[in-house]
């Protein structure tokens, strides 16, 4: 460290040519010297840093968010040119910060804008909005004690879920019918699904093997479904529901007296089951 005896006045600079002599204390080796220059100022580098979002909220249509873009404004209010070093970090190291330049030379009284790109590293694993806080450290070269911190936040809007439901009757016999319901996730993120069912006349009891389902992106999952008739009258209980009622167009309805039901009850398949 080279410290001038007298500090320059405010806004002034003073030049010192310095020379360092190095003496090897062994053998017959000659000393050597190296020269340099100190431009003494009244203060350490003074600068300001400000972060402006250009695209702060980004979509994640493909499961991976597009980068957020920012502008970092750097202003040097010092009397000398200064070299500013930029470093970025994010909470839990979830983002990559890419600067247009990590070493920026700013002249006295000058301002420079550096583009900053923030990209989440992790794949979006559900359809929730997310935010990624990050910060940028700026310090003049060799003046880390004069560091300034700028905070930012990347907001990623959730992608839209894209899924399909298929109900396939596999054993539609009797008052208790069994089905397979298939949930296909066509989206790019995992899907959390809650299943529920009802019939308007409240005559059926519909049960899912599970009501909470997690379907990965691109995955198809099966959920067995059981449909029971709620307390059907003995006289109205058919054993076959393979054809709909001709009158009400439903598979089976307690109290239905239509002739089509009579036909369905006398089908060979019905008789064979008795």
């Amino acid at each position: 460290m080279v410290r001038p005896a007298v500090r320059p006045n405010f806004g002034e600079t003073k030049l010192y040519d310095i020379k360092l002599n190095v003496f090897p204390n062994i053998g017959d080796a000659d000393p050597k010297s190296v020269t340099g220059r100190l431009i003494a100022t009244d203060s350490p580098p003074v600068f300001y840093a400000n972060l402006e979002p250009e695209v702060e909220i980004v979509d994640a249509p493909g499961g991976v968010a597009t980068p957020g873009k920012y502008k970092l404004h750097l202003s040097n209010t010092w009397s000398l040119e200064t070299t500013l070093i930029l470093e970025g970090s994010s909470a839990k190291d979830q983002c990559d910060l890419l600067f247009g330049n990590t070493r920026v030379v700013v002249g006295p009284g000058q301002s420079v804008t550096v583009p900053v790109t923030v990209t989440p590293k992790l794949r979006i694993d559900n359809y929730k909005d997310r935010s990624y806080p990050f910060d940028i450290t700026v310090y003049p070269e060799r003046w880390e004690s004069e560091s300034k911190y700028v905070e930012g936040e990347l907001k990623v809007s959730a992608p839209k879920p894209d899924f399909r439901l298929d109900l396939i009757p596999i054993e539609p016999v009797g008052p208790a019918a069994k089905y397979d319901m298939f949930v296909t996730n066509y989206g790019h993120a995992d899907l959390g699904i809650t299943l529920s069912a009802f019939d308007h006349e409240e005559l059926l009891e519909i049960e899912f093997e599970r009501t909470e389902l997690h379907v990965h992106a691109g995955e198809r999952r099966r959920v067995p479904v059981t449909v029971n008739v709620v307390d059907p009258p003995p006289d109205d209980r058919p054993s076959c529901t393979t054809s709909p009622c001709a009158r009400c167009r439903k598979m089976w309805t307690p109290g239905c007296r239509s002739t089509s039901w009579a036909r369905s009850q006398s089908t060979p398949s019905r008789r064979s089951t008795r």
Partner: protein
Amino acid sequence: MSDQIEIELSKDVIKTHPGDTVVETFVIANRSEVNDQFIVAVEGLDSSWYELETSSAKIYPMDRLKCRLTLNPPKDSTALAETHSFSVKVAAKNDPRIETSVPMTLVLRPFYNFELKLDPPVFGGPTGNYDLLIHNAGNDDVPFRMVGIDSNDSCRFTFTPNAPNRTCRRDAEGKSCGPAGRSPKLWRNKAV
């Protein structure tokens, strides 16, 4: 060690400076009654430091062969100022179990050389914070003493560490060393 081969050295300790060339002779004697081919080799020394006049020779029974070993260790930090042990080995080509080796010693004397660099050469601020880089290009450890002066004779210079320090010759080999455990290659006197 076979008694069928004998190696006679003119001297077993060679002292020299890096960059110099020393020629050493030795004699290989075939003490067997077989006309044999012999392989001659040097072990324990960097191959770029020596030249062997004969690497393979036919020696008649009870005959002798005079060989020359030329040593020319380089004048750089790889040729450390210390004692280097090596050996000359002679083996029968047809039966490698018949072999003899003799130990030799190369003592390299020190030489001193260093380079300086100030980083950055120009610095702005109320105080100047520089790195003085001292590269010890010699082959031995060297303690240094640093003194700073300025054009106005009005600056105070502080070196950290401030005591005369010994730069390690192994710096050039990329090994860590030095009292402060500084980085290899260049041992730094970082100003604060």
